[in-house]
C-alpha cells in the first residue's frame, strides 16, 4: 500500500489535467519502507513529489511518457540529500482508464509503485497504484490511502 497525503493526490491530479491531452509524469519520494528495504506487501508513505517534463516528443506524449535519465539522476540526488528514496513513478492516462497498459508492464521495474491517474476530457478521475510482480509477468494493484 502507498500512503499519499491529500496535497500530493491533488498535485498528481492537477498535473494530469495541466498536461492533458498529453501524459504527465513525475517521481514519488519517501522514506524507505522498513529496515529490510521494503517488499511486495510493504506500506510506504510518499513525502515529496518531483513533477518532471514528459521527455517524449510531440504527439507521442498523448500515449507515452519518458523520464529523461538526467532528470532521474538529479531527483535521486535530491532524494538522498533529503534522506529519502525514489519510491515510485506517477503518470496520467488521458482518456483511458487508470490501468497499466502492456507498454507500462514492459517498461516497469521491480520495487517501484506506479501511480496512474485517469484524465477524462481534461478532468482527473480515478487514481490507482500498481507494482510489478517478481516474475515481471503482471502488475498487482496496491491500495492507495489518502489520509483525511
Amino acid at each position: 500500500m502507498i500512503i499519499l497525503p491529500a496535497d500530493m493526490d491533488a498535485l498528481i491530479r492537477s498535473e494530469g489535467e495541466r498536461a492533458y491531452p498529453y501524459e504527465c509524469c513525475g517521481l514519488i519520494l519517501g522514506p524507505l519502507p522498513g529496515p529490510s528495504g521494503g517488499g511486495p506487501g510493504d506500506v510506504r508513505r510518499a513525502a515529496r513529489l518531483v513533477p518532471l517534463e514528459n521527455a517524449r516528443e510531440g504527439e507521442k506524449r498523448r500515449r507515452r511518457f519518458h523520464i529523461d535519465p538526467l532528470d532521474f539522476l538529479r531527483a535521486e540526488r535530491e532524494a538522498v540529500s533529503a534522506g529519502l528514496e525514489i519510491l515510485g513513478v506517477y503518470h496520467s492516462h488521458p482518456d483511458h482508464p487508470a490501468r497499466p497498459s502492456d507498454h507500462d508492464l514492459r517498461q516497469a521495474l521491480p520495487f517501484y509503485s506506479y501511480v496512474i491517474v485517469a484524465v477524462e476530457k481534461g478532468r482527473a478521475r480515478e487514481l490507482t497504484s500498481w507494482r510489478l510482480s517478481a516474475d515481471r509477468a503482471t502488475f498487482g494493484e496496491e491500495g492507495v490511502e489518502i489520509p483525511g
Partner: protein
Amino acid sequence: MAANLLVPTALRGFTDRQAEIALEGGTVGALLQALVARYPDIGPHLFDEQGGLRGFVNVFVGEANIKGTGGLDTPVGDGATVMVVPAIAGGAPGQAAPR
C-alpha cells in the same frame, strides 16, 4: 583504481540493499563486471545475453551518460562517482501517435 557506484532503489534488492558500493575498475564495463562478480543476481538486470547493457539501463559518470562517451569503454577516474540510472517510461494503451 576505485570508484563509487550508486545503485538505484529498484535494484538494491540485488545488492544487499547497498546504495553505494566502492569497486575497482578502469572502465565502466570493468566496474560493472566487478559489481556482477560481487552480486551475481544483478547481472541479468544489467546485461542482455550478448553482454550489452539492457535498454532500460543508463550509466552516468558524473553528469555524463556513457552513451555519448564510449559506452562500456568509458574510462573511470580514481574516486569517480558512477551511477546506474533506470530509464522510466510507459503510457496508456495503444500505439504512440506518430509525430
